[in-house]
């Protein structure tokens, strides 16, 4: 038997538990710099979501709150220089918590790149994905220590470096054979 205490009985259906549905980074010009989907969206739904959200968020003035309603969900966003970081959460989720997930992410990026700017994220978008994967899984925060994440990322970078050196020291034939 599964019981759920019904906090808002009238909501149509209680989700099992709430989570981050997706994360996206949009530039002031509406260019997408990163998207990560934790709930299941088809390709079409993904592009539609991004298009609609850019419209809503980019047109908001400064000094307004960091939350917007969007299709029964909430989007928490924050602008850093030319980039908008957006997180889509469920209605009943804690907005400020999500807002600080954004800032936490930005701080980690900043530490990794050293005063991160949009260009860093454009040319190293793959790094941003690596970092995000150390921060969130399944739409939930997995690590709140910046130091731990920094250590893990640099360990990954080392692994890649080491492999590169190995590869260059081996002949191409072996590389081909192990492909």
């Amino acid at each position, binding site marked *: 038997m599964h019981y759920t205490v019904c906090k808002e009985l009238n909501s149509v259906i209680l989700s099992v538990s709430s989570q981050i549905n997706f994360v996206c980074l949009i530039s002031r010009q509406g260019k997408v710099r990163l998207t990560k989907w934790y709930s299941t969206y088809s390709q079409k739904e993904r592009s539609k979501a991004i298009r609609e959200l850019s419209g809503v968020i980019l047109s908001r003035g400064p000094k307004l*709150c960091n939350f917007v309603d969007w299709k029964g969900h909430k989007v928490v966003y924050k602008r850093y220089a030319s980039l908008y970081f957006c997180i889509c959460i469920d209605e009943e989720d804690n907005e400020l918590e999500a807002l600080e997930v954004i800032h936490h992410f930005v701080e980690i990026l900043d530490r990794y790149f050293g005063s991160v700017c949009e260009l860093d994220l454009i040319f190293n978008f793959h790094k941003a994905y690596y970092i995000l*994967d150390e921060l969130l899984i399944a739409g939930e925060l997995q*690590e*709140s220590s910046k130091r731990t994440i920094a250590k*893990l990322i640099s360990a990954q970078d080392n692994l890649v470096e080491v492999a590169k050196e190995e590869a260059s020291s081996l002949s191409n034939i072996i590389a081909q054979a*192990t492909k």
Partner: protein
Amino acid sequence: MALSGMRGLSVFISDVRNCQNKEQERLRVDKELGNVRTRFKNEKGLSPYEKKKYVWKMLYIYMLGYDVDFGHMEAVSLISAPKYPEKQVGYIVTACLLNENHDFLRLAINTVRNDIIGRNETFQCLALTLVGNIGGREFAESLAADVQKLLISSSCRPLVRKKAALCLLRLYRKNPDVVNVDGWADRMAQLLDERDLGVLTSSMSLLVALVSNNHEAYWSCLPKCVKTLERLARNQDIPQEYTYYGIPSPWLQVKTMRALQYFPTVEDPNTRRSLFEVLQRILMGTDVVKNVNKNNASHAVLFEALALVMHLDAEKEMMSQCVALLGKFIAVREPNIRYLGLENMTRMLMVTDVQDIIKRHQAQIITSLKDPDISIRRRALDLLYGMCDVSNAKDIVEELLQYLSSADFAMREELSLKAAILAEKFAPDLSWYVDVILQLIDKAGDFVSDDIWFRVVQFVTNNEDLQSYAAAKAREYLNKPAIHETMVKVSAYILGEYGHLLARRPGYSPKELFTIIHEKHPTVSTSTIPILLSSYAKILMHTQPPEPELQNQIWTIFNKYESCIDVEIQQRAAEYFALSRKGASLMDILAEMPKFPERQSALIRKAEDAEVDTAEQSAIKLRAQQQMSTALVVTDQRPPNGMPAQPSIGPLSLVKVPSETVDSNPGDQGLTHPNGVVYKEDPQPPSQDIIGDLLGTLSIEGPPGAVAQSPQSATYEAEGAPSAADAAALVPVGEESGSVQPIGNINERFYALCLKDSGVLYEDPNIQIGIKAEWRAHQGRLVLFLGNKNTASLGSVQALILPPTHLKMELSLVPETIPPRAQVQCPLEVMNLRPSRDVAVLDFSYKFGPTMVNVKLRLPAVLNKFLQPITVSPEEFFPQWRSLSGPPLKLQEVVRGVRPLPLPEMANLFNTYRLTVCPGLDPNPNNLVASTTFYSETTRAMLCLVRIETDPADRTQLRMTVASGDPTLTFELKEFIKEQLVSIPTAPQRPQGPAAPPPPVAPASQDPGALLAGLL
């Protein structure tokens, strides 16, 4: 400039950035896609480095918003690369490009599993991350046990275990059974003792999901949560790196309090005391500081603490502390805090009895209605709506009306609907209600739905005291030089009916009324003309003795419209003209409208059904729960059966059949009903009706015996109401008083669920049954959510599934009682054995007090749920189409009596049923070609192809050809589509019309469309 470390990738990114415009960018991207495609084709010559580079390029292009429909295979294949750099890229790109439903993902399950159970820690991390982010049911079934082992393994390092916890959380969401292992609750409790805060944070998220579903199993975790919270709140033994702006992990604090909210109470007095001490500390000790991040973090914790206090329904003392805090918040300058203050006040209204305290803040809340930020205005509107009652309705509604003129367009419709509902529910007197609605129409006519003015007409008709008042008001508005068309409608209607009551006042003579109404005539559209004509006819009838001059004027108008192209107008004009020459008998025929039966406001229903904005919805429902004001009880009551709320009936409806005197003949309702006059223009969107109608036929196919078992419940469902008008009726059939009536229309709910995967299946005052379904190939998993709406338990709960023979269905145990205000989830596994259109039925019963309620509900496990949309290219289509040469694999039928639909709408209809319309395959623009894949155990995945040829000259007939590799499937699918296209309820046997148009003859060419035509 920071570079990616891959030269080719950096060059490409620079190129894209240097493009001057979108067109150039597209060209550059297309070129690159072509390049990547060629390289992937000759995969042999690709080094791991190159493969990696191309896969990144694909992801970059995908991110820019271009369709990348190839190369998924290459990304997935990198997962099985032996070396970390390639493997890493494979995992990350796959997780970004694909979602859980993607077929390629299945190919990777084995590799992923090997990485998870292997000894390479870094590989484990990659695999757990992928599964945690996009794992689906299949992953859950094959990997959950391994992931569980990792989470509790003493030899794994924290970096693996924290990922395992969240990975398991994902798998649990996909299939809750994977964690139903004996002793798992104890393991969870142990995990809460974890020293590593990363692992603890992840485990806490997992716990939130587990307790939200089944708190009883996890009681032992409760004290540990309180301990954790205490430790954090007091900052005891928290490593520096886990504090965020001086606050011990705010995220973990929030999660812990979230978990606690899923336990109904905290029984142990010591634990309870400790918890309240901590909460008190958080509530009192949170100051507003300068640093914005610190402020946000501490308030994230504070708002969660507020929610927990509300949930635990603490001593009144703490509750009023909370309200006081919120009162402070809604007045601060910081917009986030103001927003959250308003939002949480609205939530507070739901759980406790604090309305009176909140009312003290009314002025402040009204100020927020004028905030520059629309997000804040929305919350203020929700809150005002939620806190409105008889005592403050006048103030609040007048505020809303005032705000309406300056409100953004995005909010006007919601605003006017809410104002109308509040005015109706809490009107201190009826004339005020009329004033409000007329003002509403005057100020925001475009945003006032037809329901709103229909409703005011109902009230005026049913309340004699109101009639002359309303007529005088209507007359006032008509004096204005420019008024909204809806105002013309409502004024003309009211003056036609009741203008004569004021005939003695100056300015109200029939002639004057006619003139003032007719002045508006040149400005109105065809939808209003019929109402004007009715109004003129009524004025004419009330002019005793007749005035020849007025008569001539009106007759001229009737004459003019007798040749109108609009049938409705033409018929009304012709009939009124004929009737008005009948002299005295006109009085009988055009007598005053009888009273409307009492029914729930269409507005409130509309608000309940609306799925636009759940925030709004919750507030509306909250409202709906509260006691209605008695001010507007409609006087006359007729038996409620058979009275459509918005009947859509013939033009004659204004005319009262002389033999039927007012209110004396409730049995004779099958005929044209006198109440129908105004409602010719059916406010429901036509597409909805069509779908409702079309789906109506599904019930006919229900499994024999299952549907007909209980005559009482049968009225709720199969026999319910196939026609749109009936569907709108709130109470389908009159029953003995005291029986429980369903809320909303069961048929509509079922039909809606045939098209979407979550929503309400059934609702009555005691229970709400929701459904959430997931479909995967031939299998489905429905979860029934049984929510007890009462403050008393529901007993003798029984749910039986009556499956048709082609479905294998297994319902998990349903508890016999549902505790007050609790919701029970019962998973239901469905397996489709073979194609069929039969429908499964849920036989559900429960006992509330002495009343036994039994309903039989069709379950939306219908044929189209086992379809997967698929787009086929001409190269795939034609060989298939050709190889399926004729019956029984390919069936053709000329279908008559089709609901006339414009082609794009038909294409939409097909797409909603997951039959993908493939444009361009057929050269004839009047034809449609669609494809889909059907899944069942016997047929496996089977491609189905459909072609529809329509006749532009006669949209009621078409020729349909359906082909698949299975004869039963072909037949069932053909019948299924037919049911969606044909309006069965009224389907009269049409005379044999001419045969369907012959397929277009197109010259054979290489054009795929022409090729198809040739084939057909």
